[in-house]
């Protein structure tokens, strides 16, 4: 249910990708295959810019890796939840890891719930929505001329923002967010494109690393094993 607005956005975004890919000269089946296998919208769009009669492999790999490197951090943040899950199940869950289902799972975990179902279920819904959207874009691209007019390009941003604000807020978190915001803005302005998410996230994480949450009953949460 929480995935519904996002799925609609993903269908629209997928349609935009399908349309753009076909205009770039990709065959309809290849386009749909790419969405099915890669399932990472922003990086798929970015590689379209590099598409031509010949495509250089290394730049494509670098771009895809850079844009999707946030998955590394998301995966790492899920580790405490996943460490007791059998490897086969653990890595099948990660196949459909995206921003949206990760955000819900991470928020639930902050509240103390282990919600792995949302990664799998939500991920599958998003995956199907992405394929459906691409398919629509490839064959009926003209229908969704301007999703921007409907504000559809903002669904993901609003969704992620509401997830962030729904979590617990403490001075520690707010300082981390401020630093994350500054670092991501700086990276966005001066560093190569798409490094800002990783830069900001790491900056925020550093705050957490040095400023530990005070837990009742523990004087200092040092690194001494108990």
């Amino acid at each position, binding site marked *: 249910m929480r995935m519904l607005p996002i799925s609609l956005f993903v269908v629209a975004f997928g349609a935009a990708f399908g349309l753009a890919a076909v205009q770039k000269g990709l065959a309809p089946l290849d386009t749909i295959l790419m969405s099915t296998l890669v399932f990472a919208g922003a990086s798929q769009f970015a590689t379209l810019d590099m598409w031509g009669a010949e495509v250089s492999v290394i730049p494509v790999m670098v771009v895809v*890796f850079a844009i999707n490197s946030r998955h590394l951090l998301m995966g790492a943040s899920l580790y405490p939840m996943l460490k007791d899950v059998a490897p086969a199940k653990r890595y099948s869950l990660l196949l459909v890891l995206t921003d949206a289902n990760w955000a819900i799972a991470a928020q639930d975990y902050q509240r103390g719930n282990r919600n792995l179902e949302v990664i799998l279920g939500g991920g599958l819904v998003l995956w199907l929505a992405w394929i459906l959207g691409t398919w629509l874009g490839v064959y009926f691209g003209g229908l969704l001329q301007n999703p921007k007019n409907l504000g559809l390009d903002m669904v993901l941003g609003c969704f992620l923002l509401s997830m962030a604000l729904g979590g617990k807020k403490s001075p520690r978190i707010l300082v981390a967010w401020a630093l994350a915001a500054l670092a991501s803005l700086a990276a966005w302005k001066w560093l190569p494109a798409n490094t800002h998410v990783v830069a900001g996230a790491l900056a925020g994480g550093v705050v*957490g690393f040095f400023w530990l949450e005070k837990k009742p009953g523990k004087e200092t949460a040092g690194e001494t094993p108990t």
Partner: protein
Amino acid sequence: MTIETTTTGVLVLILIMTLVTLATRFGGVLIMSFVRISPRIESFINTMASSVLIAIIVPMAFGGDAGALAALSVTAVTMLVLQKPLPAIAAGVFAAAAVRYLF
């Protein structure tokens, strides 16, 4: 190294993109499984988790048009008041559409 976009060439490219993306999806968890989780590491991970969101959103607000700004601020206010994501998202998207329609 370049690959021609022939039928097989495209398939190879898609496969390469798939593998690179998969590496990012699996990599974080894989690396963490070799790290001993101390309270410090756990604190790092937890703060980083919500910082990812902020790092995605803030440049989106600065780089976006008036509609994007309206969407994000309306979402923030609604979310802080109601504490419910669905109305917050709906209000934000509606704000973007309204601002773009009016201006």
